[in-house]
């Protein structure tokens, strides 16, 4: 349980975790820092993809396509079923086949869910975005449900968001969190 801070100008995502451990995770450019007691205890390289975080996409009103439009992923199919628009995304033909197709569904331009398929077309993971509420003119999902399939068994993760604030000026410094110099 903790707080996320994100400023789309800094593209620095800060997660201050209070439970079960007090720790801070910061994602900036190609690094993810793990900070405990104001000391960097670990730094890992990760892809520079702040633009793909849910927070960035919401702030830029791009959550409906989950950032796929900023990639080389190809729209293979778009179909309307019931009240959903389902889009099937595929890797470009020349790309290495690391994973299968990805399907997204939207209702009234809001992302409902995303389904990941493996190369054999079997579902490996689903993610659902629920309880959208308008915060400062932006539609933010307050519940994200992850279902991952391991050995045909479902495993769940539910993330709930509360007290979301846009243009928060009271904790300005933390949005540009300074990484402690010592490791």
């Amino acid at each position, binding site marked *: 349980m903790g707080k996320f801070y994100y400023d789309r100008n800094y593209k620095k995502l800060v997660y201050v975790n209070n439970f079960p451990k007090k720790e801070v995770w910061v994602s900036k450019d190609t690094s993810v820092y793990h900070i405990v007691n104001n000391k960097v205890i670990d730094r*890992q*390289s990760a892809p520079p993809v702040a633009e*793909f*975080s849910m927070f960035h996409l919401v702030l830029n009103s791009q959550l409906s396509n989950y950032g796929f439009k900023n*990639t080389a992923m190809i729209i293979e199919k778009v179909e309307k*079923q019931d009240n959903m628009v389902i889009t099937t995304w595929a890797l470009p033909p020349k790309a290495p086949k690391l994973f299968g197709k990805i399907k997204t569904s939207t209702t009234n331009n809001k992302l409902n869910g995303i389904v990941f398929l493996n190369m054999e077309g079997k579902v490996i993971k689903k993610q659902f975005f629920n309880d959208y509420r308008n915060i400062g003119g932006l539609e933010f999902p307050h519940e994200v449900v992850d279902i991952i399939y391991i050995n045909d068994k479902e495993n769940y993760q*539910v993330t709930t968001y509360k007290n979301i604030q846009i243009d928060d000026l009271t904790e300005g410094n933390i949005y540009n969190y300074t990484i402690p110099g010592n490791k």
Partner: protein
Amino acid sequence: MKKLLLVICVSVFAFGSALAKDAELFSYDKAKVNQAVSDMSRVEQMVNQNPNISGDELMAQGKLDASFEANATSPFSVMGEPPLGIPSFLWGCILGWVGLLIVYLVSEDKDETKKALWGCVTSTIVGIVFYFAFWGALFASASSGI
């Protein structure tokens, strides 16, 4: 003519089935999920009542068992160690769908990807294979795509 009608009927039926299948992908048993995470909801209530309490303290009080921490920080710990030591929960939040795929690629039975990635990490040449294998796939051909 009958054969043609039959083919059309079969095609329409098959097409309809395919559509139904896609729509069904986007449903899940909410009650089942809520039941599965009910223990976490109970912990959340305890923490809300005492915001400064730690997981260790709750364990010491016998209100949590030892398996809680692993489940709380990495609910998908059954997949093994989280990629790069970063909890899979954060991969999804920070890196969106890309992060979710990373978790899959290095946690699923893809030994070559896993070894390549971890090899890069341990030799501090971080991300080279990763970029070639993954980002190359997504971004290298961006100019020819969308």
